[in-house]
């Protein structure tokens, strides 16, 4: 044990505002990336669940293979593949375009800017991975809706698509909500792996701040706390939703 390190800690006090700012920036990036991944993987997950339950063998099989591949390999390896591997396989022109700057602007105000390749591949990797989980949870939700619901809706004159959209899917999502919220928490935590491919999220910023301040405890303490706050907020949200659902189904 190194006593001088501890005394350094006690003497140096807390992090300078600059580094707290870095950590907060990282936290916002973590939240932003998580939100995008949650939205995209939920939308794709629905399409995915529909494919698996479509009754069309090739489609259902393809979806099954996808789930097996993406759930049975580590996210870290997948992210390495997307960021370091895929560009080596892409044609030169595509790569240059992806790395370039493109902006959607009206006059001189920039509305949307093309994100960095780090951000792009982290989001793609996380969405590809998360969809395999979110999709399966939505599918279990779909299976939890009794077949009679669909039949009744069709009898009432709904087309199959309308029956899915207005009758089956809302119920399926309600059933799937608890496991889905668990997945959303996993997504938030999984964004931390983005640090390995240069995504400037909370863990990346923590390492950066640590390398400049050497205040290991303070930096990782604050970062850990920020993760806990984010997860706790999701947890509160989950409780609220569950209570509302319970009231509705009564």
């Amino acid at each position, binding site marked *: 044990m190194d006593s001088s390190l*501890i005394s*350094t800690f006690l003497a140096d006090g807390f992090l300078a505002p600059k580094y707290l700012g870095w950590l907060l920036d990282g936290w916002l990036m973590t939240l932003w990336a998580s939100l995008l991944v949650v939205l995209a993987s939920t939308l794709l997950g629905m399409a995915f669940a529909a494919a698996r339950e479509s009754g069309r063998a090739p489609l259902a099989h393809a979806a099954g293979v996808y789930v097996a591949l993406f759930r049975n390999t580590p996210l870290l390896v997948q992210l390495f593949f997307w960021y370091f591997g895929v560009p*080596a396989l892409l044609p030169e022109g595509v790569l240059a375009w992806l790395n370039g700057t493109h902006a959607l602007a009206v006059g001189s105000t920039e509305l949307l800017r093309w994100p960095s390749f780090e951000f792009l591949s982290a989001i793609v990797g996380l969405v590809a991975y998360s969809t395999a989980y979110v999709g399966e949870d939505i599918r279990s939700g779909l299976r939890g809706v009794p077949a009679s619901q669909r039949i009744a809706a069709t009898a009432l004159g709904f087309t199959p698509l309308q029956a899915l959209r207005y009758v089956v899917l809302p119920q399926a999502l309600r059933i799937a909500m608890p496991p889905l919220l668990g997945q959303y928490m996993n997504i938030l935590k999984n964004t931390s792996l983005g640090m390995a491919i240069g995504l400037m999220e909370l863990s990346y910023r923590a390492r950066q701040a640590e390398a400049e301040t050497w205040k290991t405890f303070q930096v990782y303490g604050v970062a850990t706390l920020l993760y806990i706050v984010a997860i706790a907020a999701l947890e509160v949200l989950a409780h609220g939703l569950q209570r509302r659902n319970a009231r509705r189904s009564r």
Partner: protein
Amino acid sequence: MKKLTLLTLVFGLVGLVPLAHADRLADIKKAGVLRVAAFDANPPFGFVDAKSKKIVGLDVDYADALAKKLGVKLEIVPTNPANRIPLLSAGKVDLVFANFTITEERAKVVNFSIPYFASGTQFIAKKGTLTSPEQLSGLRIGVDKGTTNEIQLREQFPKATLVAYDDTPFAFTALRNGNVQAISQDGPKLIGLLANVPDRDKYEIPPFAISQDYIGVGAPKGETALTELVNTTLRELEADGRAQKIYDAWFGPTTKTPLKRIFKIGDKT
């Protein structure tokens, strides 16, 4: 907030406990093993040999000479740049021999030996894209997390976009892929990297450096006896010509990475 109070409590407790401070040098002799953190992916300083799968390199040779002097076994722990200080602070290694730049900031948390190597922050870019430091401001530059290169760039070229990776080869892959336009590291390390790249003619190391740095051995903070022993050993190695031999083995004229030796141990203390 509960977590915070818990942490403060833990820190408080640790602060109060009187620490039995052992002498690391004595511990090493007792254990018969010297644990050294070295790079595993940065030729010629420290890298996994293709055939033997052992970590070898200039830093490892220095560590080996020290272990021999102590009469103990050498155990190499692979590290990337960002893990060097945590490995020391956590007591996972006794010394760091990993192209470790001496800085005042770092000296607050680790002991440094006298320098045994000199270098400076340089760059690799595709041929013809980088000719002067002024261009750096407009570039996306790949760096390694936890290096002085990153900090120097941020201070001197605040407009440059920095992307930090876990180790230099990752940064180089990003350069190949066009995600960054240049990567930054200590010059000799870059020479070592480029020498091992199959299509090395596409890249170049522009002939300018943005800093002048000295490389030392890192020891745990406050371990004076151990640090002193490292210093004495380094001086001996220079005096009896072994330092030159180690240098020539990795940077000599017949190696993959010929580089003139401009710094001798003892030139700067």
